């Protein structure tokens, strides 16, 4: 098992290398001279030249890339052009809120979507199945910001149950932290819940037709035992896959959600960085997200082997 995980980690290295190359090239793919781009519209040629030299842009591409990778491997993501702060420190400040939002959304999704999908499959074709799937279609079709503003209007402004916007760190107490995250997590989770519920239903329907479910019934097992002990674990592989893929959705969604609910997270930092053309920050964030995504995929593969003994490692 350990050697399997190690082998998988080694296998992710080329992926990370390609991602790094791509991220680094961002600056060059963008039209124009990077130094001119960074210096901005009103810079004099001397300014541009100064930036070029200070960033080492006059050296060959691969040399630049090599030294960039070298610095990253030592934990140095560079310095923000706009704030002159280290990129790693800027990301570190913003990591907490985004991570909180993603974890709460993920848990909310699993807790809500999987049981909904199971019930829909169990009662396939019934009214309750149609209602659940109807909500799923609804959840798919609504953009995050629409749901976000609607939720904020109803539950924060009208009913005054929850705060409208903002973020409180976990260090200031669990409830204040959670209170601020409920609405953003629901808004962000909508599409995700719909997706996972649908996949759960489909996977469960498939499994419920298998011979071993009939065997479980023949043994006299109760409905709960059949659904959750025998069926759900067999349906887990596609469900886990989609939850993993969904994390990519979350990353994109977090950017929008954080704007709507004024959460000082990475999403906001990303938007600000893009608007200011703060390339080192953009690079750092994209690199981080890619790394998270590769890590998630690795975790999914490990979960597969835990769920299904037939998958060899």
């Amino acid at each position, binding site marked *: 098992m350990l050697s399997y995980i190690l082998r998988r980690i080694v296998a992710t290295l080329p992926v990370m290398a390609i991602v790094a190359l791509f991220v680094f090239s961002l600056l060059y793919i963008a039209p124009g001279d990077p130094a001119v781009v960074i210096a901005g519209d009103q810079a004099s040629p001397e300014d541009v030249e100064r930036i070029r030299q200070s960033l080492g842009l006059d050296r060959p591409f691969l040399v630049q890339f090599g030294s960039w990778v070298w610095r990253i491997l030592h934990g140095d993501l560079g310095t923000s052009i706009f704030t002159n702060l280290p990129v790693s420190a800027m990301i570190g400040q913003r990591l907490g809120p985004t991570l909180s939002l993603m974890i709460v959304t993920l848990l909310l999704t699993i807790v809500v979507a999987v049981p909904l999908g199971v019930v829909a499959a169990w009662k396939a074709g019934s009214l309750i199945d149609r209602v659940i799937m109807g909500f799923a279609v609804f959840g798919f079709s609504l953009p995050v910001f629409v749901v976000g503003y609607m939720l904020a209007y109803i539950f924060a402004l009208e009913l005054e149950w929850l705060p409208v916007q903002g973020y409180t760190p976990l260090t200031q107490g669990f409830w204040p932290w959670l209170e601020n995250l409920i609405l953003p997590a629901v808004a962000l989770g909508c599409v995700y819940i719909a997706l996972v519920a649908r996949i759960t239903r489909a996977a469960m329907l498939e499994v419920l037709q298998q011979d071993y479910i*009939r065997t479980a019934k*023949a*043994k*006299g097992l*109760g409905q709960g035992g059949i659904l959750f*002990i*025998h069926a759900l674990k067999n349906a887990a592989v596609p469900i886990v896959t989609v939850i993993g893929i969904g994390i990519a959705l979350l990353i994109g969604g977090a950017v929008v959600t954080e704007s709507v609910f004024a959460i000082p997270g990475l999403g906001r930092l990303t938007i600000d960085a893009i608007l200011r053309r703060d390339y080192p920050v953009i690079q750092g964030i994209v690199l981080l997200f890619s790394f998270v995504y590769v890590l998630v995929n690795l975790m999914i593969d490990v979960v597969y082997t835990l769920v299904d*003994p037939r998958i060899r490692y």
Partner: protein
Amino acid sequence: MSENLLRIDDLHVAFSTRRGMVEAVRGVTFTVKAGEMLGLVGESGSGKSVTGFATTRLLDAAGRVTGGRILFRGQDVTKLRGDDLRQLQGAAMSMIFQNPRAALNPIRAIGLQIADAILTHKRISKDAARAEALDLLRAVQIRDPEQRMNAYPHELSGGMCQRVMIAIAISCNPALLIADEPTTGLDVTTQKVVMDLLADIAAARGMATILITHDLGLAARYCRRIAVMERGRIVEEASPSTLFSAPQHAYTRRLVAASPTATSRIEDLVTEEERERYTAVLGKPRPALAHGTPPLLEVRKLAKRFDQGSAAVADFSMTMAGGESVGLVGESGSGKSTTSRMICRLIDPSEGDIVFDGHSIGHVAARDFHRSPLRKNIQMVFQDPNESLNPRFTAFDCIAHPLMRLDGMRAGDALRKRVEECAQRVGLPLDLLPRFPHQLSGGQKARVGIARAIACRPRLLVLDEPTAALDVSVQAVVLQLLDRLRRENDIALLFVSHDLNVVRMLCDRTIVLRNGGIVEQGESRALFDNPKTDYTRKLVEAIPHIETGPTLAAAL
């Protein structure tokens, strides 16, 4: 003992389908006494399994009991709800199924699966349930039961999986066990071991058993009473000896005739009336081969090694003359399918050579062989006609495809004529040609598969268990068809099968394989009548011969 344990009264079961309600069981009545084994025999679609599922209340959601009663210990099973039903299922009444590996949860250790059943019905601790599960594994004679407790179904053989299923079924000492095709798909030797075990356990525990099977010979060997079902009704109920010596109903007569026995010939597989048409073909003698004719197929020291481990096939050599039929028999895992696929050039051999009609083809890569001009000379008929036909191709497309690919024919009248001619040769009605596989019966699909294979007029036909998925009456017709094609068109047949009775009838020569090597070979009848090796003898003895049935049943 005279008390009826189960009494089924005028049972009707219907399924709702897209085309409305379809009655699968139409007035079935029978009784089972405590401790007895009843055989419920019929072909696919006869309603025998549906009757079993109705009794254990395991019908699909689409199926409903529309009439009649199922009285188990005087209680109507069809009216049970909730907890009463669950107390019955798996406790007083249990069931084992066809395809045991699929019937076990693939991701749950077998020990847990047995313990599940125990814990559902008994208030005992998990450790106690585990100990009981271990005892049950011993009872079904699984070796190293302590280690097997933690094994998963994919780590066990089919026969072992069925033993685990039996262990689950008997875990709560049921009064009635319904075994639905328990050994279909298992080797003859495994079938014998599993059935013997089941009969012993049933006798030792005084458990009544309903054996649902399509195999009359099997039912005759283990049951004292057999009920024959056809199209949702029981047409005849009798002891095996009466059934075989004096079958009353026309359907039973057909079934008895179609069941291959140790002595039957291909022409015996039909009733008297149908035989006349066939004898005309048989009258035509096969042309004797001129001396010194080179063999059609020569295989030299063929071997196949998969990625790791020992060879699947090693040192396999054989020759075949044109128009000859050779049987390749052995248990599953003996390498017979691997060998046939290498000869068909669907997979590459690791060593050795294959010479077809003077051309060495063993070294042509399997993925390039479709371009070889010899491709159309070697064709294959696959095991399961349901799985091996493209569901999006009509019967016509299916037969026309090889003609277009290998014979370079274009769509048009000539192609249509060839396809129709092929269909006629295999006895496929022409109005079925526009149909898709799911609109055809098993026998019709088998004919499409054969028509496709003979479309390009091959000289060698490799058949991998072509009748294993078919009912005996359909099998009889398909076997006659193959024999006729061989005689009429001089096609050589390489027939891979685990059904020795069928091989004995159809093949001039037989090769017995075990663990990838040849154990014995020779002229079919001589080989089966006087096997030289213990292995062949074990294979032959394991076939449930109809003749041995009554004697064994009488001894019980």
